[in-house]
């Protein structure tokens, strides 16, 4: 399995040199259903790693930034698992004709707590990531990102977003 993962990584790195933006979509296909939700593609750690390694060259800040990205991916995976679990429970509850509003409310409250905790975790991780890079490095890291975000949101939401 590690060998397969390694060959995927090498393949991804070669592809990334060819075309960074298309890689986001390719990784989605390669990583497979375990890392996907119906709503959003998992952040592409390997592509981001290359961006950070290219931009942040400081000996201690670069590994710190990479550690924050890894942490953020762990948060994403946890959130995806939590949402999948919620969906499965909700589908089961919905299939029950006699399910009461109270049963739905309890399930919603349970998921709300998990979701809001993730919200806090992701904000903290993002703030720490920002603090590890200089304003200029951040500017370089996010350069021309608006277009990529717009395309990805259009894919996720199914409709274009406006400025």
């Amino acid at each position, binding site marked *: 399995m590690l060998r397969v993962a390694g060959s995927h990584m090498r393949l991804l790195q070669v592809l990334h040199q060819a075309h960074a933006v298309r890689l986001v979509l390719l990784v989605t296909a390669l990583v497979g259903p375990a890392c996907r939700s119906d*709503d*959003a593609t998992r*952040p592409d750690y390997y592509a981001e790693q290359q961006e950070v390694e290219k931009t942040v060259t400081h000996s201690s800040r670069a590994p710190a930034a990479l550690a924050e990205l890894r942490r953020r991916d762990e948060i994403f995976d946890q959130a*995806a698992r939590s949402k999948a679990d919620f969906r499965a429970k909700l589908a089961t509850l*919905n299939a*029950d004709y006699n399910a009461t509003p109270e049963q739905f409310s309890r399930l919603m409250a349970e998921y709300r707590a998990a979701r809001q905790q993730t919200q806090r975790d992701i904000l903290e991780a993002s703030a720490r990531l920002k603090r590890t890079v200089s304003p200029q490095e951040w500017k370089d890291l996010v350069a021309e990102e608006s277009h990529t*975000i717009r395309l990805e949101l259009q894919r996720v939401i*199914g409709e274009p977003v406006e400025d």
Partner: protein
Amino acid sequence: MIIVLGFVLVAALLNGVGSGDTLDFSSIDGVSATTAYRAKDVIADEDREREAVYGIKQMGEVVKAHNRRVGQSLWELGEIHMQHKRNVADLQPALIQMDADLEKTYADLLARRLELRRSVTAEEWQKIYPRPAVPEPS
């Protein structure tokens, strides 16, 4: 060039109802309009069938509208996060707003589910919304 995108994708996962979401009772199995077709097949009474199909389609519209709003908020969130000087406090209002929006959408969909139940018998319901298969332990 994809650093902020990662942040936006996590927020999308948390706040989007998304196509195929279980809460979108109009496309319970992820295929839009399938549920409405099932209702057409299952409900013999014309009036009830019309009501049920309308209700299911309306739920689809609620989800679409939610996704549109979330998409816009996520876009704005990304634009804020792209500025180095903007901090967590600047991102929080949009996240709180999206969270409240999601709760409102859930409540709306659940109210519509109750409404739909009035036009569908228990037997028909089981055919429209079959109990999902329990996944094999991995």
